[in-house]
């Protein structure tokens, strides 16, 4: 029954030319560009930029930590928009984008939590504390891990897509809450120093590697997203082929 609904709703999977047997040239170019840009940003952040006057050398973790969470926010925003479009149009192409983007967002949020924990140990002396920003980031991670589990264990693909879309839309509300947490509550985590009223409070020399790493992670995210969507396309085509064989049999 699941395969029937997938095949009926995914005409794109049956187009042999577009079935995604090989990565597109654009995807390959994005992957190569991501490696070059990230290598440049990491070199600047680790070897060129001077240490922070207050935190010292360990502040260099921020050049990975901040771009990771901002790119994760972008990934979940794509999930949010794709989920709305799926519920509206009932087109599994939007669902494929949503589930693909959610997976990458979870990886990036995991990296954010891990690098933040390492930075916290070196700066605060603890690996973890139940600070509002940290807790809301952990909740964000848990929500989208739950989303992926829901998608993986759903027996009926369209029901999984529907429930997943609702969870993804509600889960996205955690992001503005997380961003504003450092303004609303007294938190151990420092307040926003880039996306804040009045512009960034970070020195330009430190903003440059942050911006380059952010660009590199956006390129990497786009590359991974295209590859992950290709996987969905191949799976849908396999489901459609199984269904056709079943009909003939």
């Amino acid at each position, binding site marked *: 029954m699941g395969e029937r609904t997938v095949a009926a709703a995914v005409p794109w999977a049956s187009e042999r030319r577009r*079935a995604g*047997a090989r990565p597109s040239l654009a995807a390959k170019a994005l992957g190569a560009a991501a490696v070059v840009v990230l290598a440049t940003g*990491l070199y600047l952040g*680790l070897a060129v930029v001077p240490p922070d006057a207050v935190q*010292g*050398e*360990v502040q*260099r*973790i921020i050049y*990975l*930590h901040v771009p*990771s969470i901002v790119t994760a926010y972008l990934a979940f925003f794509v999930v949010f928009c794709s989920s709305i479009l799926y519920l509206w149009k009932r087109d599994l192409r939007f669902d494929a984008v949503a589930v693909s983007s959610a997976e*990458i967002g979870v*990886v990036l949020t*995991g*990296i954010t939590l*891990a*690098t933040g924990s*390492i*930075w916290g*140990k*070196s700066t605060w002396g603890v690996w973890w504390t139940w600070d509002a920003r940290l807790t809301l980031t952990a909740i964000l991670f848990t929500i989208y891990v739950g989303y992926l589990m829901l998608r993986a264990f759903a027996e009926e693909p369209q029901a999984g897509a529907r429930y997943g879309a609702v969870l993804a839309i509600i889960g996205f509300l955690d992001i503005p809450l997380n961003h504003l947490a450092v303004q609303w509550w007294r938190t151990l985590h420092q307040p926003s120093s880039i996306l804040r009223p009045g512009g960034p409070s970070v020195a330009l020399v430190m903003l440059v590697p942050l911006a380059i790493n952010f660009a590199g992670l956006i390129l*990497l995210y786009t590359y*991974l997203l295209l*590859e*992950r969507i*290709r*996987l969905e396309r*191949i*799976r849908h*085509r*396999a489901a459609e*082929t*199984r269904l*056709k*064989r079943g009909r*003939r049999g």
Partner: protein
Amino acid sequence: MGSWGFIGLAYGVGSVALLLYLILLKRRLRDARDELAALEGDGGRGTR
């Protein structure tokens, strides 16, 4: 652990996570492609 130890740990964890995800994604793509090829091969034989 010194500052550079923490920095190495953070960048190491980040790099390993991304690399592992990429490797697993490529493996899933290869498996899905093989499954599709097998299905289409079987289907082709069945219709001849």
